[in-house]
Each structure stands twice: as C-alpha cells, then as structure tokens.
C-alpha cells in the first residue's frame, strides 16, 4: 500500500514534468509550466522520505538543505547575461549526481544483475563526462579559462582516453562483486578519473561561440544518465524524466547547431569556434561614419524601424536605453520591431530573455523567419552590438560563414551600425554590411550612443 502510494506520486511527478515542458511552447503558458514541474519535483522529493527501510535521514536532510540553499542564492543573484554558465553548472551537478548514484550502487556489497550493472556504468560514464565538461564550459563562459587548447593529434588522444574509459567501464560492470577492498575498488576509481578527464579534454578545445551547443548537448547527456540510473534504482520518475530530457535536449541541440550553421560533429571535433582572424578577401568600399544626431533625424522621420540587438548590446548594458528609444519612436507613431537572430546572445533565446528583462514585450520581438521579409520595407534598421549575424558574406560561396542564416539588414533603406570599434566579429570575418552604400557606422559605447539617439530624437 505504502509502496503503491509512492509509485503513484512518482507517476504524478513524471506527468507534471511532461506537462510543464509542454507548456514551454508558448510565452503565455511557460510560467505555468515551470510551476507544474516544480510541484512535481516537490511531490517526488517529499514522498521519497517515506520509502520503506530508508536510513541516513540526517545526512540526507543536511545535503538537501546545503545544496538547495547555495544553488538558490546563486540563482537569485546571477545576472541575466551570465545565464548560460549558470545553466551549465547546474546541469553539470545533475550529471555528477547521476555518476555518484552509480558509485554508491557499485560500492554496496553484493552483486546486481549484469544488465543493471551495464546501464549503471553507462550512466556513470555519461554523467561524469557531463559533469567535468559542464564545469569547463562554465569556466570558459565565466572567463576563468580564456584560452582554447588546441594541439596536433588532439582528436586521436581524446579518442584514446574515451576508449580507456569504455574499457574500464566494461571491467567494472563485468567484475562487479561489491567488494571494494582490492583491485575492484581501484578499477572503479580509475574509471571515474578517466571519465572525468575525457569530459575536460572534450570541452577544452571548443571555443566560446560554440559553447551553447555544447551546454545543450551536456544537458541532453545528463538527462540520459539520469534515465539510466533510474533503471538501476527501479525508479520510474527518474527513467521517464531523464529520457524525456535526453530526447528533448538532443532535438534542442540539433536546432541550435542548425541555427548556427554548424553540425554537432563539427562543433565537437573541429575547434572552429576557437580559431580567429580568417580574412575574407574582396570586401570593397569604405566604412561611412555618421553622428548620433544625424542618425536620430533619420529615425525620427521613419515610418518603420527594425532594431537588431546583439550580445554587444547586453555587454554594454544598453538594453534599457534601447527600449526607451523604441518607446519614444513608438510614441511618435513609428512602427518599431525587434529582430532577433536565433543565436543572438550567448545561447538561442538568450537575447529574448535580456530584452524581456529590460521590459520589451515579447510581441514586439520577431525571429529571423518572421522579420526577414520586412527589411526592404523598413526605413531604417539599427544594429546594436551584433556583427556576424548580419553579415551578407554568409550568402557568398567560399565565405567561412557561408550558409549561416542572417538577418537581411543590408536590404533596409538605411542601416545604422552602432559599434564600439572597427574590429571584426566573433568569427573574425570582415562584415560586408559595414561597407555597404546604405550603411552608416555610429561608433561608440552602445549605451552612450542609445542615450544620444534618444536625446537627438527628442530634439526633432
């Protein structure tokens, strides 16, 4: 009876998780979704205390309180711009937890069925890689690790390390007796060391631009690891939630990679995101400068303005000023739309979060497919802190970014590019838009320039 109640609670949790994820398909219902999922989690955690023959309640409670409290405080404090690394670190912890569950199960005296031992050790391998990989991703995004580590034969060495981890995993799973005293304990430790090492080696060469894809991949992997440990523990909630996230995360990873015009294999093994300074020959013309005042006049007399924000805008903390400018233009009867590239910000959808934080309503924000047809009818487009995602070179064969979907800013009647300096973009490629006849460069700090534009429009 008690067991049945516990199982019913787990089923309810799994259903709530799926409904929660389902609600994520619209901004109107998304908030409800996370609350449902939260209720599911609370139910599952509370009911677990009622598991028959449970021990170590003090250890358990202390761990829950410490882990939960630290994570809660950190989550409330983190700036919205730092959201990607926050997701990375929490995700890594989930992977680590899955790996440690397997460790506990292998340390327990007595054997388990071989099929469970295999699933457990696969989960441990995936979880360990996700843990150490996510920590490296966090360190890179946080700026703790600045360099990308590339050396000849890297892929071969990584492959050998992975092979070693797999061999150790097979030994652990097949030799499992639960006696940790001798070589079995050593093998288990060696397995974890090598698995963690693989996560580090796999992530180190990947550059910052590709990190969102990697985080998303680790998110999917953690889900899978959790699902596998669910089989070992015979817990349906873990199995369903883990596998659902594993599948959903895999799809999300593909969508992100597609938006960036990269294949997942490319991201993982090529290290393009790390290389910089590729020159694109054949950009002709000169950059034409404009003052904020001149730009403001053009904006004030426009009928339709499209704003293209990039991560540079968020770095300069200019989103509030930009929203103020948008409101000012709207009040003058000008139609203002925000155009967001799928990879604007530091991960897909990140820019929407940053704009939402500034107060921009989501119905003013349009994605690439919705807005691209409208650029020819826009009197002015303002590019703020974006570069590669508006580079028309992506339409030309032979360009390193050929094929990447871009926002057609060059088709607007007039484009203003607000930029700190003359340097090339994240991918290190010259931007043909900056040299176009209908483009004017407005140099300066994004927040500063946005302020001057506001003042300029008010004067008109």
């Amino acid at each position, binding site marked *: 009876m008690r067991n049945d109640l516990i199982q019913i609670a787990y089923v309810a949790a799994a259903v709530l998780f799926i409904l929660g*994820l389902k609600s994520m398909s619209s901004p109107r219902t998304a908030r409800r979704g*996370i609350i449902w999922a939260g209720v599911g989690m609370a139910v599952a955690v509370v009911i677990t205390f009622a598991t028959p023959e449970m021990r170590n309640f003090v250890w358990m409670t202390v761990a829950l309180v410490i*882990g939960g409290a630290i994570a809660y405080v950190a989550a409330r404090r983190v700036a919205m711009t730092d959201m990607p690394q926050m997701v990375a670190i929490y995700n890594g912890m989930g992977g680590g937890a899955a790996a440690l569950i397997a460790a506990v199960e292998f340390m327990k005296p007595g054997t388990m069925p071989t099929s469970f031992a295999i699933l457990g050790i696969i989960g441990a391998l995936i979880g360990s890689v996700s843990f150490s990989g996510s920590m490296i991703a966090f360190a890179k995004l946080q700026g703790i690790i600045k360099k990308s580590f590339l050396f000849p034969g890297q892929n071969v060495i990584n492959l050998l390390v992975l092979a070693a981890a797999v061999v150790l995993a097979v030994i652990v799973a097949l030799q499992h007796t639960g006696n940790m005293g001798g070589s079995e304990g050593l093998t288990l430790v060696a397995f974890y060391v090598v698995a963690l090492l693989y996560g580090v080696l796999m992530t180190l060469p990947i550059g910052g631009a590709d990190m969102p894809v990697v985080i998303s991949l680790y998110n999917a992997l953690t889900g899978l690891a959790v699902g596998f440990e669910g089989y070992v523990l015979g817990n349906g909630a873990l199995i369903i939630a883990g596998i659902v996230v594993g599948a959903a995360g895999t799809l999300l990873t593909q969508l992100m990679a597609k*938006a960036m015009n990269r294949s997942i294999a490319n991201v993982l093994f090529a290290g393009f995101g790390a290389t910089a300074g590729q020159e694109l020959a054949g950009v002709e013309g000169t950059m034409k400068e404009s003052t904020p005042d001149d730009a403001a006049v053009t904006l004030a007399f426009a009928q339709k303005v499209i704003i293209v924000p990039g991560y540079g805008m968020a770095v300069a903390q200019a989103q509030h000023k930009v929203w103020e400018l948008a409101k000012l233009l709207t009040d003058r009867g000008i139609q203002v739309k925000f155009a967001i590239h799928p990879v604007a910000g530091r991960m897909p959808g990140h820019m929407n979060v940053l704009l939402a934080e500034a107060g921009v309503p989501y119905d003013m924000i349009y994605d690439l497919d919705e807005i691209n047809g409208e650029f020819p009818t826009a009197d002015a487009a303002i590019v703020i802190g974006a570069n590669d995602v508006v580079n028309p070179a992506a339409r030309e064969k032979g360009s390193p970014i050929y094929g990447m979907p871009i926002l057609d800013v060059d088709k607007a009647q007039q484009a203003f590019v607000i930029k700190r300096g003359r340097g090339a973009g994240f991918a290190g490629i010259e931007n043909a838009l900056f040299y176009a006849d209908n483009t004017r460069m407005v140099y300066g700090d994004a927040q500063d320039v946005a302020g001057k534009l506001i003042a300029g429009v008010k004067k008109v």
Partner: protein
Amino acid sequence: MITGFAAIYIFILAAFVGYEVISRVPVILHTPLMSCSNFVHGIVVVGAMIALGSATTTPERIVGFLAVLLGAANAVGGYAVTERMLDMFKSSGDQKKSAAAKGGGDA
C-alpha cells in the same frame, strides 16, 4: 524493478514524448526551455536520496551525501533561474495591465 522489454518500451515511448513536446517551441523560449529541462533532470536528487537511503558504510554515505548535494543544487538552481527568466516575459497587454494596476505608474 523494471526489466526486459518493458524497460525498452518505456525508453522508446519517453524518447518520443521528449521529442514531440519540444518540437513546436518557438526560438524565443529556447533558453528558458533548456533551463527548464535542466530543472527536470534535477529529479536525479530523488535517485540520490534512494541511493543514500540504503547506504550502510561511511564511504557509501559520503558519496551518497555528495550525490544528494549535487542533485539538490541541480533541482533548486534549475527551478530558480527558470522561474526568474519566465517572470520577465510579458506581452504589451500585460504591461498595460500592470501599469494600470499601479495606478498608471512607471511600469
């Protein structure tokens, strides 16, 4: 225990559910979605509790303790960041409503 073909059925069906549930999510929600799915695999905390709950030796307890600690951080942190993000998504209508609620304040 869930074994044999039942285990495989669950795996396949859950994978389809995950794929379907996400396939129609607009780009603007990708970041909250990743964060939410990150929260959902925080269910690992339950597994960690079960593992720790049957631990009998000190090394097992220590490893189990760390598992619960990490799992709890995953679940709580994942929830808090997701909720914070989704809290900020407002439509023009919502903004007018909240402005009216504040008596035409500066919302």
